[in-house]
């Protein structure tokens, strides 16, 4: 069978999957008696129409870049880390402890502390499933999934019993010192004279996320470790023969993946909420799966897919405000994107291959 040209594989396949998913959602919206065209317009206007809307879009996108990169690093080693949710939850705990317990003299140092603590806690939560997979053969999908639930229970315990301020009923930590608030994206753009709204949670973490995407790209394709990850993912036996230790690679992959998931908390916990709440991740760990699949496992694709999902999330909340269409329409869309790009790739790919083969034959 002829393979697809690279541009078709990278651009056309995800695009067609996206169009199918959008079409399904359009039908769904029409079926509940609403106008799909009006819905998409509200979404676009709400997420790109103003710099404030754009700020929200980029804030959500930042979360998804972190979790998407996390999923993709594990994918490179053919490991499906479904535990981004739990790892980011623990990352939140790390960030909160760093901000609450250590008297940082300046926000920039607090940021460094949060980056280190978030990554360390997230990586720690990824370590045990990785070790169990490598040493004991426990299926990593099941263990990381179980660790998501254990993380939720742990967080519930920590917030209710340990971090909750006296007299508060909310299962949430105290607010962090205002001095640790991260610079808003609006402030940063203001420095170079670009007017950008300040009333949204987008912050410096977006820049960190983009830098991290470049870093992951360099790591995967330009370092020994990246090579080992890819080799292990492509052919485990051959990698073993080439002297790559499967135990080490599995653990490295999950430490990296969990650590990057944990970094998400810098954006969501320190950057936006300024305190630790029970569900600080809000499903971003799972969206990471959709983003990694949609972005074809490439950091550049992941950034694009994250902005797309950021648009969907911001657009979805606009939809809920402006119409009677529930924002859960976005979850349906997300499910369809995962289904078509991740589980049914052959359904789109095979007919396309036929098409390209025919065209090639006609020449």
């Amino acid at each position: 069978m002829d393979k697809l040209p690279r541009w078709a594989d990278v651009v056309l396949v995800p695009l067609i999957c996206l169009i199918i998913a959008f079409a399904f959602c359009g039908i769904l919206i029409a079926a509940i008696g609403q106008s799909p065209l009006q819905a998409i317009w509200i979404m676009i206007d709400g997420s790109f129409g103003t710099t404030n809307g754009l700020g929200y879009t980029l804030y959500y996108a930042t979360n998804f870049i972190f979790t998407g990169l996390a999923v993709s690093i594990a994918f490179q080693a053919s490991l499906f880390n479904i535990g981004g949710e739990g790892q980011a939850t623990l990352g939140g705990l790390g960030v909160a402890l760093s901000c609450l317990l250590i008297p940082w003299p300046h926000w920039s140092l607090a940021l460094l502390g949060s980056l280190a603590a978030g990554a360390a806690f997230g990586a720690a939560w990824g370590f045990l499933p990785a070790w169990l997979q490598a040493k004991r053969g426990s299926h990593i999908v099941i263990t990381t999934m179980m660790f998501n639930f254990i993380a939720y229970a742990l967080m519930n315990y920590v917030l209710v019993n340990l971090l909750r301020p006296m007299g508060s009923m909310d299962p949430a930590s105290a607010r962090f010192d205002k001095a640790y608030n991260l610079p808003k994206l609006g402030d940063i753009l203001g420095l170079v004279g670009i007017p950008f709204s300040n009333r949204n949670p987008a912050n410096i973490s977006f820049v960190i996320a983009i830098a991290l995407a470049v870093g992951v790209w360099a790591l995967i394709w330009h370092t020994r470790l990246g090579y080992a990850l890819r080799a292990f993912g492509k052919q485990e036996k051959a990698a073993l023969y080439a002297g790559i230790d499967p135990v080490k690679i599995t653990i490295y992959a999950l430490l990296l993946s969990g650590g990057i998931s944990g970094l998400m908390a810098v954006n969501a916990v320190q950057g936006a909420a300024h305190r630790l709440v029970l569900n600080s991740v809000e499903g971003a760990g799972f969206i990471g799966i959709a983003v990694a699949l949609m972005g074809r496992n490439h950091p550049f694709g992941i950034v694009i897919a994250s902005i797309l999902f950021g648009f969907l999330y911001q657009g979805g909340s606009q939809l809920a405000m402006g119409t009677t269409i529930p924002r859960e329409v976005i979850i349906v869309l997300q499910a369809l994107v995962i289904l078509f790009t991740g589980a049914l790739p052959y359904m789109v790919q095979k007919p396309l291959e036929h098409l390209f083969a025919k065209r090639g034959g006609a020449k």
Partner: protein
Amino acid sequence: MDLASFLQILDSTIRLATPLLFACLAGLYSERAGVFDIGLEGKMLVAAFAAAAASYGSGNVWVGVLAGIGAALMFAAIHGLASITFRGNQLISGVAVNFLASGLTVVLGASWFQLGGQTPALVDGMRFAEITLPFAAPANESGDLGLLGGIYSQVLSGHSILVYVALACVPLTWWVLYRTRFGLRLRAVGENPAAVDTAGVSVTGLRYAAVGITGVLCGLAGAYMSMGLSAGFLREMTAGRGYIALAALIFAKWRPWYALMACLLFGLLDAIAIRFQNIDIGVLVIPVQFTQALPYILTVIILAGFVGKAIPPRAGGEAYVKER
């Protein structure tokens, strides 16, 4: 703790174990046939919604059951299509199914009933009636039944029909798996599909049959959730039970009788977590969160092979490609 509250805990154990048991057996068929299914949660959720909606619309609980089974079958068909016909990634397909259910139930529910995603409360006739077993004392006259009488009258009696169906499914599943030709082939297709294919039996057909049974059982699990355990559908009402069922399946090492034990154990933990908040055992206080997380922790320990190794069906998770 007195006898009455002990019996009450056992009673709610049975109730809470029922959806787990249906879902666990559902997963057992699918995974024994070599199709991993982490979409049990989604199938239960969509079935719970469809069951409650149809039951409310028709006023008949059985119409609800059929609708629940139908909805779960449709979702099972998506999973089958992705993982059998199109040879996609079964785990990713399961994740997609879960999200699809979670989004679709709220979108449809909110626009049909205008209650923010839940269905109106179901009244008598729209939900399952409780069955009193023969010779069982009614709930209000349980003065001095003793332990055995109490267990019979209060724990075993007084549940809806689906509870007994779920319990009956355990020996039935055992019989189907180990005593019928279909069961032998089903197990074979999960271990070595090539051998089954060589014998001239359709791997695809068997796997679709297994996924279909999974759909029916998930449908019953969901129907029990919204029409037995509670009176109506609430958003995200399955609350991770599909994952607990998956954990129970691993805990039971993919065997039906052990599945019953595992589901009863996890049901008991759930009942204890609901009844007592934090448990003071003198030396230390066990927080309720620990009880809630215990099924997952136990499953990780079992998976790690520290207490007997859990080995999944060998061909699980792989699509079968006929050699050409």
